[in-house]
């Protein structure tokens, strides 16, 4: 595993924030080890961005404490900002400046000297695959390239903790993969990454996840353990009659949830050993002989829905 294990990079305790009558974040606590990629997962409005902004020191909490790299973000905000970097959903790039000029601007902002800046920006541009584009205007970059330039600017002062708020929203899968490759390389150099995301497939790539719901963290664990904690077993039933099958299975004993996918039906049952033969018998009775039942690996979204259930409807 990582060279420096068991070193706490981020410690959050009893964090709360409200806006008027709306309680946006309530008693949130978690800690993140150095070198982790920690995901804050949940729908829009669950409190992810508010939490991120407090961690970044740009929003004052009503209550609670935050330590990043040992520094108290609430009390010593300016000192903490040298240890962290925050990339909001809309990162402030200057569209009428070139890639090199944007990097220069952020280096100046953090007081990086020239020699250091030249070396650091070369490393980062190469890691981001942006070498050769230094003179291109930021406004002329594709969405994926803009995200990478944002990341380069956010990393220019060599922060130890990186806070990313939905970094790949609107970025296509190919660019998204490149972006993740950069994150994994950063992790290997000991950078700790916290990422807010509404995309469940992205959550699968994190080392640990906090599931946010209505301003609170309801569950916090590795993706594998969250999946193991999902009540029941997920079955995939492929059939040429998916709609009919969905209607047939709804309300059957032991069926906890039915979801119609494009070419199959996902069924969550309380007890697979007992329910698979029962479902098979139902299929036989209808003479849907083409149907096949198999256990399916749940996704984080299945877990989210199963754990939080109808309360999130």
């Amino acid at each position, binding site marked *: 595993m990582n060279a420096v294990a068991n070193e706490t990079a981020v410690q959050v305790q009893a964090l709360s924030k409200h806006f008027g009558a709306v309680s946006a974040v309530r008693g949130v606590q978690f800690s993140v080890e150095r070198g982790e990629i920690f995901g804050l997962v949940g729908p829009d409005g669950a409190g992810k961005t508010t939490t991120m902004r407090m961690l970044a020191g740009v929003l004052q909490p009503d209550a609670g404490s935050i330590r990043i790299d040992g520094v108290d973000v609430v009390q010593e905000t300016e000192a903490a900002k040298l240890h962290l970097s925050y990339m909001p959903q809309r990162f402030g790039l200057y569209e009428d400046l070139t890639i090199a000029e944007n990097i220069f601007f952020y280096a100046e902002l953090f007081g990086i000297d020239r020699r250091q800046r030249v070396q650091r920006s070369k490393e980062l541009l190469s890691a981001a695959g942006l070498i050769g584009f230094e003179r291109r205007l930021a406004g002329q970059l*594709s969405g994926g390239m803009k995200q990478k330039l944002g990341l380069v600017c956010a990393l220019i002062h060599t922060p130890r903790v990186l806070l990313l708020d939905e970094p790949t929203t609107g970025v*296509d*899968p190919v660019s998204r993969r490149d972006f993740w490759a950069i994150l*994994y390389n950063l992790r290997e150099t000991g950078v700790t990454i916290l990422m807010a995301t509404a995309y469940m497939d992205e959550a699968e790539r994190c080392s640990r996840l906090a599931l946010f719901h209505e301003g609170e963290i309801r569950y916090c664990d590795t993706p594998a353990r969250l999946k193991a904690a999902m009540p029941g077993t997920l079955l995939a039933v492929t059939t040429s009659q998916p709609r009919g099958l969905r209607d047939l299975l709804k309300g059957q004993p032991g069926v906890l949830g039915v979801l119609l996918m494009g*070419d199959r039906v996902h069924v969550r049952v309380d007890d697979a050993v007992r329910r698979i033969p029962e479902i098979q018998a139902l299929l036989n009775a209808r003479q849907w002989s083409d149907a096949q039942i198999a256990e399916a690996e749940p996704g984080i979204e299945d877990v989210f829905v199963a754990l939080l259930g109808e309360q*999130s409807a």
Partner: protein
Amino acid sequence: MNATTDAAVFAHGLTKRFGSFVAVDHLELSIARGEVMGFIGPNGAGKSTTIRMFCGLIPPSDGQATVAGFDVGTQSQAVREHIGYMSQKFSLYGDLTVLENLRFFGGIYRVPQSKLAERLTFALSMAGLQGREHALVATLAGGWKQRLALGCAILHRPPVLFLDEPTSGVEPQARRQFWDLIHQLAGEGVTILVSTHYMDEAEYCNRIALIDRGRLVAIGSPGELRNHGLGGVLLEVTAQPLGAARSALLNVPGIVEAAVFGDKLHVLVGPGGPDAQAISAQLLARGLQVGPIHAVTPSLEDVFVRLVSREQETREAA
């Protein structure tokens, strides 16, 4: 009506050029009535341009397309009367109520006054918005807004519906309700084309058309694409350190790709490439730690990324 096809959406040699740039390049596509078709591709692949042609908003440069039986080039007005469109931005008026938004869109879609009451009731009940008719839209949660936007898009009962990244940022439970509605509409014979680059939306489609640089790269059900799209076997490899393991494997003949996935590697092995045992031996020989190695079902994203990069390699070689 056009006699060439019974398909609800049909394209043959469909091409759109902007100057010397070919945005859509001889696209062939046929979507059956009641089918939910996913339209996926990277940014700039030509998804939006194709949909704008299907909606009769811009004429094709070459080839032909019909929607609900009408030619998009010569019968664009008829096309527009037979389609519904819902974008990720929802285009609702936040300072109007639910009912006011519906009435507004009823006017835009020229729903006859005699039918309006019945259509409004239908849209409200479909979207589960009864009892909230007088709520300001700005105060609704994302899932409600999304269902209202769908209600607005189908007020004139269009036989063909275009959805552009419809569930971006919506919570999981609401997203599932939304897809339930979509499949219900499909069951009633509405044909639906969903444009997205989010793979979890693609999973809900009966078939997926993958396009890149204006061309159709692959088409099939999610299961077909997962099982046959990669052209190889996907292995999940546990090893440490991960970065060194990845670099080592990329140099092994027969290994097409190795990508970091969480705390493991996803390794694509081409025909005749090394098996799990051989991979383990390669890594051990380099002094790396190796854990379990086993085959995994590829995700649609694995398939998508692979097909797009293969397409790009082929073009660079050509």
